[in-house]
Structures are given as C-alpha cells and as structure tokens.
C-alpha cells in the first residue's frame, strides 16, 4: 500500500527527506 500526498505550498517549502528513507508517523516531512 502507498500514500500519495499532493499539496500546494509556498515556493520556499523544502522537503526534509532523502529518497528511500524510512519514516514513521508524525516525523517531519518538510517545512517552510
């Protein structure tokens, strides 16, 4: 199963992730 998030955000939004990174509920995805 997979979850796809699609969202509008200010252009200075930055993901705080790496490809193939393991992640858990509530952990930061990104911020402005």
């Amino acid at each position, binding site marked *: *199963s*997979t*979850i*796809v*998030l*699609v*969202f*509008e*955000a*200010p*252009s200075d*939004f930055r*993901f*705080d*992730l*790496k*490809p*193939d*990174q*393991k*992640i*858990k*509920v*509530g*952990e*930061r*995805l*990104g*911020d*402005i």
Partner: protein
Amino acid sequence: LSKSWTGTQIKWYPIPILLGAVVLVGVQARRNYVAERDGKGVGTKIVDENGQVVRMQGPWTVYVIGALPLNAISRAWGWANNLTLPVWFRPFGFKLYAYIFGCNLDEMKDPDLTHYKSLGEFFYRELKEGARKIDDSILVSPADGKVLHFGEIAGRRVEQVKGITYSLDALLGVTSAPEATESVVGKSEEETQHARIDDRQFASVNGIDYTLDELLGDEKSKSAMPDPDEVKKRKSKWTRFVKASYWKSWVKRAPSDPANATGVAPSTKPTDFDSAADADADDGEEGSADATTKKQPKQIDDAGMPEPDTPEVLGRYANVAYEMGVGALPPLLQPHSPGQKGLKEGNKLFFCVIYLAPGDYHRFHSPTNWVAERRRHFRGELYSVSPYMANRLSNLFVLNERVALLGRWRHGFFGMVPVGATNVGSIRINFDKALRTNVRMQRYLAGTYSEASYSGASKLLGGQPLGAGDEMGGFLLG
C-alpha cells in the same frame, strides 16, 4: 502410414495444472499487451491532461503480473486472513510473521497476541499511546513506511520514478462544476457574498470557492466520471439478482414458516442482508447520483462523523480553524477570494509518496491541520505498489484502486491519496462509513470514480476537520 494411423494406440495424459496456468497467464498477458498497444487496455476510461487514454507500460514481467486476476486474489487473500485462528497457534504464527516482515511487537497497544483472532486483525493492530510523537513542523508523515519519491509537480505531471511520470488530473480526477461557478461570477461583491453564504453547502459540495479546476486552471477529464446509465444498469441488475436469490431462498424456507402458511405477508423489517445490499447499491449509484443531479456529490449523513459544529468539535479543532483563518473573518471569505484561478501567488504544487511494507503499522494519520472536503473513490486494478513495480509499471498509481481525500490547508489545496495493492486492497476511512473498497463487480467499473462530500461534518469549516496526527483510517488485508 495407414497402418500406423489406424493401429497406433492413443494415450492421453493430463497437462500439469501449473503448466496449464502458466500457458493461460501467458496468453492473457499477450492479449493485454496487444490491448494496451491498441489503446484498449485497463486505462481505457482514464484520460490524462491531454485527453489521451492512460496506458499500462513496462517490461514483459508487468504484463504477466497484470494477467493474473489480482482483484479476485486480493479478496480471497482477505477472506483467508480473516479466518479465526486457534488460540494456541496465534502467538507462534504472529511472531513468525513479525520475524519475517520485521514488525515491532513492543509498540502494540495490546501486547497479548492471543487477543488477535486473525492475521487480518493483527495486521491492523493499534499502537500504544505515545508510540509516535508528532513533530511540530507544518507537514508530518501520515504513515510508517519508506519514502519512495518526493518533489515538485511540473506541468501537471507527477514523477513516479526518475523518467516515468503520470497525470495529476488522472490521479485526482479533476472535474468541473461550471454551473456553480457561473452562479457566482458576474455578480456584485455584495450579491456574491450573499450568494456564497446562501450557497455555502452547495459551494462547499461543488467547490465553488475551491475546485481543482480553479486550482489547476483548466477543465479536463470529464470522461473520468462513470457513465451513470452504465453504472445504474449494472448495479440494479446485480441488486435484483441478489435480492431475487434471497427471496428464492426465503420461499424455500417458507413451508415451515407458519406466517407464510396462513397467507400473512413476510415481515418488512429490514434485515442485515437488506442493509448490506442497499449499502452496496448506494455505493455503486453514487456516480449516477452525481451525474444526474448536476454532478452534486452524494451527502454522507451517517458516516460516523462528529456532530457538526458543536462546541466540543470546534474546540477540538480550534487549531485547524485558526490555521484556516476561521474566526478572524467570515468563513465563507476564507481562504480564497471569489473567482480566483490557479495556485495562490508564489505557491507551487508538491508531492510525496510513502510506501508501506507488509510489516509496517498500517493505519494512517493526518499529515497536517487541514479540512477534507470530499473524497473520490477510484475503482481500478490492484497491482502491487512495491518499489519493484513502481520502478517498472508506468501509471501504476493511476491504474490502481484508490481513495483521494481532497481539501485545503493553510497554504491552499491539500490532497491525500491512499492507494490499494494486491495484498491490502481495502482502504478504510474512519469518518466515512459509506466507503466500500475492493468489492466484486468493480473490475467492470475500473477507471471510474464516485464522489462524496464531507461538508456536513462541519458547516463552519466546510468539511471534515483533521488535526496533525489524528488517526484517519488504514489499509486492511485483502
């Protein structure tokens, strides 16, 4: 030659089942390949932003996998995994599963493995309080898993993997409500505000102030809507068949029923069967209701939602309301001005894909403070969504069955799309009991979707308010 022809004894041998299955799958894979090549494949009813039919593309291995009856396999898998297991076997079986798939049993809410009746129940286990901390950033992970891909959306195309993209329109089912938009445009500001207040329910349902078309600046993919006549015909035929079968079985039981013997009509009290059949019919007719009543989505009255706008609800979602700007200004004027098109100035569209492995906790939570205004249930295939398939099968997330939850957050549009797979075909949304996924007959409706509105959950916020970290639903086995 004549002697050999007439005199040779013929001896028949059965073809091994496995060999037969391989040949059948091979033939079906070849047929699928030809159908896709000719534009008559599984994505026939799905069109991209250019009006082109979505195609399944990849190496021969994905055609072989696609030739399998994955939806039926998924339901059989779900049935098998919901069988009650003997109590003595549960700890051993679940520990073996946890060892193979790397589950962390220490964070389970109920650590006693004998309490989980089946593998399906264990798979949908809850975490104990405080097992996950919610970060205070504006966007957090909705689930445990692996980040497959993330980035910006450019030109209405989402990157599945490097070099393979799929259509955003097809993923979200971008449709329009032109009659609603017209009712607002062209009026004075005062009239517009009045109209918007009067039409709040309607506006929220049809998204006058915030449709995806306005967001993305175009009106496409109308054909992604199910053909209402076709849906109604198929569903009503199926419902009639099931009900007829039920009454036949009732009549067979009737001789021993004294009420029937005396000519008294059978009770009209609704049964579980009727409820199930009606729910099934309702679910299938959502699309037809949408299309025949000016595409107005069906309201969910009994969807397990909280009482709208009670002080408790508003208090609970005060942070959501605050971020949406509700309270500072009349809610109808937030967050967009009438007639706004496209993204807000200075904004971009982003995406992030998270893959949940079989051993992961399979409930999902709200990734931010937002309001879910509607859901679109896309019926489709149930291909595996593992990284192996995601790297090979193009349009994977568009072809698979999924539930798109669409709404808004403080920065504008927000959408969350749980996508089903072969082993986890059922998607559950806690506040939407009307939703039925991975049901029979859906293969005929693949590529279509039905829509429902959550506007009844909170008239003030215009949808279902969700705080960051709130549990929203989950994936079930099969």
